[in-house]
């Protein structure tokens, strides 16, 4: 049940990309590919979900917990509002990143910080089903079936790779359920996602 399918690089000519996609579609039914997964995800144009996060950090007693709400609106908007243990928010709209922590607001341009862009695209690109963006930032392994799948993302950006080893994103059909982040030092965070409402199709 396990087939790694390389998706076409975005800088290859269009006909080649199309050709590879067609090959992917022609492959046996058990060979799941990125296009199929992002195709499932792309059907949702917006959504909102509760998340709980557990972070395991060496040298810190017990897991660190956080909870809040994720929401997105295709193609460009994504936000993560943390309600516990402290109120924080991160809102991404296009190229604008707005962070609020401890009552302070910071605004930044996303493309000035490629590492952050890649991390945000891992979640925003998955939620909105943007295969091209995901492939631009990560080497991707696809496992599972259309009902339950896992994407393993390894950063292409060298600087990000020194910080983040990989991301593992698990989903059920068109829903994102778990985002697992492995940091280079061995620290780890697992974000579980519970859809809050029936998402609009």
């Amino acid at each position, binding site marked *: 049940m396990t087939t790694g399918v390389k998706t076409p690089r975005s800088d290859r000519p269009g006909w080649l990309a199309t050709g590879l996609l067609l090959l992917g579609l022609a492959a046996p039914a058990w060979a799941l590919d990125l296009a199929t997964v992002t195709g499932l995800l792309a059907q949702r144009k917006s959504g909102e979900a509760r998340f709980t996060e557990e972070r395991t*950090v060496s040298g810190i007693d*017990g897991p660190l917990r956080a909870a809040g709400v994720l929401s997105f609106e295709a193609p460009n908007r994504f936000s993560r509002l943390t309600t516990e243990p402290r109120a924080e928010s991160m809102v991404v709209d296009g190229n604008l990143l707005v*962070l609020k922590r401890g009552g302070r607001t*910071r605004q930044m341009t996303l493309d000035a910080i*490629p590492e952050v862009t890649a*991390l945000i695209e891992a979640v925003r690109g998955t939620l909105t089903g943007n295969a091209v963006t995901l492939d631009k930032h990560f080497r991707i392994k696809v496992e599972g079936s259309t009902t339950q799948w896992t994407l393993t993302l390894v950063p292409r950006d060298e600087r990000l790779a020194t910080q983040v080893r990989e991301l593992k994103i698990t989903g059920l059909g068109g829903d994102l359920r778990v985002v697992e*982040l492995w940091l280079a030092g061995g620290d780890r965070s697992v974000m579980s996602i519970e859809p809050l409402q029936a998402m609009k199709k």
Partner: protein
Amino acid sequence: MTRRIGVVLLIWAAVVAACVGQILRTPFTADLSAFLPAEPDAQQRVLIEQLQSGLPARTLLIGIEGGDATARAQASRALAKGLRSSGLFEQVQNGESESFDTIGSWLFDNRYALSPAVGAQRFTVAGLQDAIGETVSLLGTPAGNAVKPILERDPTGETVRIAEALIPSNSPRSEEGVWASRQGQRALLVAINKAPGADLDAQLLAIQRVRDTFAGLGSKGLTLQVSGAPVFGVESRAQIQDEVRQLAIAGTILMSALLLLAFASVPALLVALLPVATGVLVGVATVSLVFGSVHGITLGFGTTLIGEAVDYAFYYLIQARAHGAPHWVRHGWPTIRLGLLTSVCGFAALVFSGFPGLQQLGVFSLAGLIAAALFTRFVMPQILPQGARSSRMRLAMGQGAAHAVAWLPRLRWPLLALGVAAAGLLLVQRDSLWSAQLSSLSPIKQEALDLDASLRADLSAGDARTLAVVQGNDLQTTLQRAEAAGRLLDGLVDQGRIGGYDSVARWLPSLAVQQARISSLPQAEPLRQALAEATQAGPLDAGRLQPFVDEVQAARGRPPVTLAALRETGLSPLIDALLLQRKDGSWVALLPLQPVPGQAATPETAALLQVLQPIPQVQVLEIGAELTRMYAHYLQQAQTQALLGALGVVALMAFTLRSVRRLLSVCQPLLLAVLLTMGLMALFDVQLGILHLVGLLLVVAVGSNYALFFDMLRRDPAAADVDTLASLVLANLTTVLSFALIAMSGIPALSAIGRVVAIGCFLALLLAAAFAPRARAD
């Protein structure tokens, strides 16, 4: 008589030698700051300081195009490395973050003096709980990787607190680890020159170094783009120098050809050029004496003086031919003197304007014309007492002129009708008639401006168009006001009305604030107790935090951050962009405001002022709008002065002519000439600026000579011989041709004057002849 020649020539030679001596010591400038007010108001003062010596005046914007992203990034790194080691630049930025390391450790060492969160509340149980909680919330995320190594030393996250305030809200895009444009394929660098912006030679050297270093990289397929104020300054100067030289050469050749045709004699030609040369020399030397330097545009204007000063020579050479020098001194000179006085009236208006650039033009014209007239009056009769002999061409010219003078009055009514039409057109278009664009003075080409704008847009950072400005008599007051302004601006950031702002107070808090922070740091024992309580329920064990307790103790004894210490750390470029000391010892702090990313502009100046209004002497400066406002004010002032100058000309003529009828008949063609010239400009949608206005003033000054001439002919019909008419036509021809040359100049300032005066003077002669009072004697 011979002794008199000797004395006169000796005086003249001494004057010329003195002028040349002065000119040789004169620095020539080409920056537009000469066209900024000499006595600015507080708002303008900050702006002018910025334009003249601020960071933008010595900042080069560099782009690398072509190839692929990797090639561009390599070239960017290599170029930056080469430039950094050249020693010419204070700072070279290309987006590589490695250069931040030393600054980072300095910030870390001084965190308890710099962090805005430090205060008594911070070290209570609740405060520690909150601060540690915030730091811990970063652990296990990618951002936590930066926090974790310093967790034991800085569990309250002061370093993060400082760093997040310093992250610019608008930064260039980063590609392959260096700055790159958002659209298009371009790597970006910023290089800040050590030398002041006004030192154009040093700026030229720096620009050359950028080009040479890039050429030395041997990168195939990549092209270099360099822009910024230094490039504009250097190129304008080169262009003005080139053009002034070309204009002078072309003007001299043209005049010489005309003179040769008219006099058919090389000595006469040389003598006729002497008043012009004398006038230009005296003019430049006087400007240099009065202002300490001479602006390129003033020099360019000098060539226009040829047009008027050469007339004096014509009048003398031709009129002295008929009756000899003594007769000319009695009958010809008074007319020239009156013409000179009217011109003096016109240009005196410029001298009283509030702008050094215009004052220079005024002083130059006054001194030059007076010198040329004095030369004609006192030296010419000594050198060529009999004037210059006639030529066939001049005879033909005179006869043609006589016919024209006889025929032109038939055009009175059509010309009047045209005048009325022009007045009507001007009335209809009165709102779009004048253009208040400072750029109309600048010789910078549109493509160069476009490149500059696109580089600036790509870099976005460091190019705030809106600044909050606070000032104080001493450094501490200024820093305290910057801190107060920062607190108010934080509110705007939270409301999402601005993206962020820079402030020197982030690097250099006032002593009061630093002392308050340091004195709020607790002693070891109370801190340990509070820590134990605060971390009881948390995931971080207080036992690990001994380094924190030690560092807080160390910070209590640490001297405050000073300006000198900042400079030693290599932060001078940063500080100089945000903090200036004036000559009088007072200080100015600039807080550049960044718009919300993706939005073009910050809120309205008035709205910002409203927010900042509690701070004494606060200002909000919007650079583009302020420049336009200043130029509009400048234009208005120049209009008033031109009008006063014109009134002065009329008053002078009224005084001399002592007859309302004669005055009217002299003024009529002048008024019509001005109306028709402006009408023509309006017809071709040429918006009028200050230099057009100066041109119109010249038309009045030169045109009044023509009108007076015809007035003289009416009273002394015998003087209206072919030779005299020829001198008039020649005088006009030289004026029109020399200004037509200038009209073709690529420097907008010169071509504006040229077009107006060439057209205006031609019309003035035509109209003066058409409306000449008839003597019925010929």
